[in-house]
């Protein structure tokens, strides 16, 4: 087993953690871009040396999307902005909230989600992006409103084999699907219960916090909604509530196991305070697509814990025995090298964690 690299994007810069095969001991290096808010991280493993990408913004000098081709040794901030709203939109980029390298079969394709809510496509490994007009021109767009984190497109789920299909999600707005390669998009939020819109609710306006695609069946999705954990078995056409067994069905991240169908992870927090129920720091795992959930807390802090986890601050790596990673709002980063059974602490006392990504590197 090779080394593992973990990107930790925080409200005050990026840290990199690296471990050898055991994923139990970590060397942490940083901050990179100190003081900048790192809202999105990505590791593009399709290249012989993985490319690291990160997006974010500085309070004074605005947004950026930078990349490194030497595993964080140096960062390339290109002279021409990679993500620029076309003049006719009258909009300006606030930040990039999501960066998703596509499959190996779509070499060079990288997707980005931004605030204000928009989807972007790159065909040159993230050097430059083009606005996906089909979604930007969707007639629902004037009705999309900002959630607590801003009006952002934060979830991008390319279909692994069908170029015509893709799901995205935004807060608020909800899930939107295309089945024609991005030309047209339709809201896809049927079955989600909401108490913040009148009955019957409109097709848009859902505060979807995150959606994850199943590793085994691409039509199976898991969603962490503003309230409720949901599952879809038909590519998002209909959603069923599967959060009843959790100690709280509110939360922000949901992450699918990279190889095993039906396995996913959430970090429940209460609706009232957005902190762990009863002050217990715990990840919950399902191995049957939400029919049942198991607490995964061995090695996590046992004392009362009152920090939540944001939507992009949980991830897995791509090892055969998957690693799972969680960054908290009080600057802890926890790692499990055995799919959530046991946890170790990678870092503590960092700024609040916004985004984590991990991958095997040679």
């Amino acid at each position, binding site marked *: 087993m090779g080394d593992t690299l973990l990107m930790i994007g925080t409200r005050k810069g990026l840290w990199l953690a690296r471990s050898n095969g055991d994923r139990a001991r970590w060397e942490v290096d940083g901050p990179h871009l100190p003081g900048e808010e790192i809202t999105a991280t990505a590791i593009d493993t399709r290249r012989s040396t993985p490319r690291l990408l990160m997006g974010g913004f500085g*309070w*004074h*000098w605005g947004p950026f999307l930078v990349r490194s081709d030497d595993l964080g040794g140096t960062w390339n*901030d290109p*002279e021409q902005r990679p993500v620029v709203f076309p*003049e006719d939109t009258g*909009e*300006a980029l606030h930040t990039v909230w999501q960066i998703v390298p596509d499959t190996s079969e779509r070499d060079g394709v990288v997707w980005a989600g931004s605030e204000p809510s928009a989807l972007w496509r790159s065909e040159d490994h993230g050097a430059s992006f083009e606005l996906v007009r089909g979604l930007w021109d969707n007639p629902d767009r004037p009705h999309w409103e900002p959630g607590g984190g801003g009006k952002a497109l934060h979830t991008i789920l390319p279909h692994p084999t069908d170029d015509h299909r893709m799901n995205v999600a935004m807060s608020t707005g909800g899930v939107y699907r295309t089945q024609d390669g991005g030309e047209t998009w339709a809201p896809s939020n049927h079955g989600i219960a909401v108490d913040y819109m009148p009955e019957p609710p409109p097709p848009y306006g859902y505060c979807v916090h995150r959606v994850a695609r199943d590793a085994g069946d691409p039509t199976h999705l898991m969603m962490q909604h503003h309230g409720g954990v949901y599952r879809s078995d038909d590519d998002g056409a209909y959603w069923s509530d599967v959060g009843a067994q959790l100690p709280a069905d509110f939360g922000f991240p949901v992450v699918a196991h990279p190889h095993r169908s039906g396995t996913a992870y959430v970090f429940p927090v209460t609706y009232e305070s957005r902190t762990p129920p009863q002050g217990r720091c715990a990840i919950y795992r399902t191995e049957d697509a939400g029919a049942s959930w198991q607490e995964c807390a061995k090695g996590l802090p046992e004392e009362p814990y009152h920090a939540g986890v944001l939507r992009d601050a949980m991830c897995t790596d791509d090892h055969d025995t998957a690693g799972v990673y969680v960054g908290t709002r009080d600057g802890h980063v926890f790692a499990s090298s055995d799919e959530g059974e046991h946890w170790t602490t990678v870092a503590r006392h960092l700024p609040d964690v916004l985004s984590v990504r991990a991958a095997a590197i040679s």
Partner: protein
Amino acid sequence: MDVHVRFHGALAQRADGPNRIEVALEDRATLPDLLDVVAERLPRVGRSIRDETGTVRPHVHLFVDGEPARGEAALARPLHPGAEVLVLPAVSGG
């Protein structure tokens, strides 16, 4: 006419640019004209000062000869030969 432009050290560092430059402009050129030249000559500096709509970022302050230059009237006012333009970060952040 020539105009002197000084950038705050944090901006110069962030944009990998110089601390000051001299810019030759047409007579009666304005601050937006100056910032167009800056953006062309130093793209990273330019985009740090203004977004893609041409709006000066909300936490960037411009000064001409020590006087704050914010608002439409200040931006439309012609610069004079030898003007000293300062680009500073606002007292903000968290």
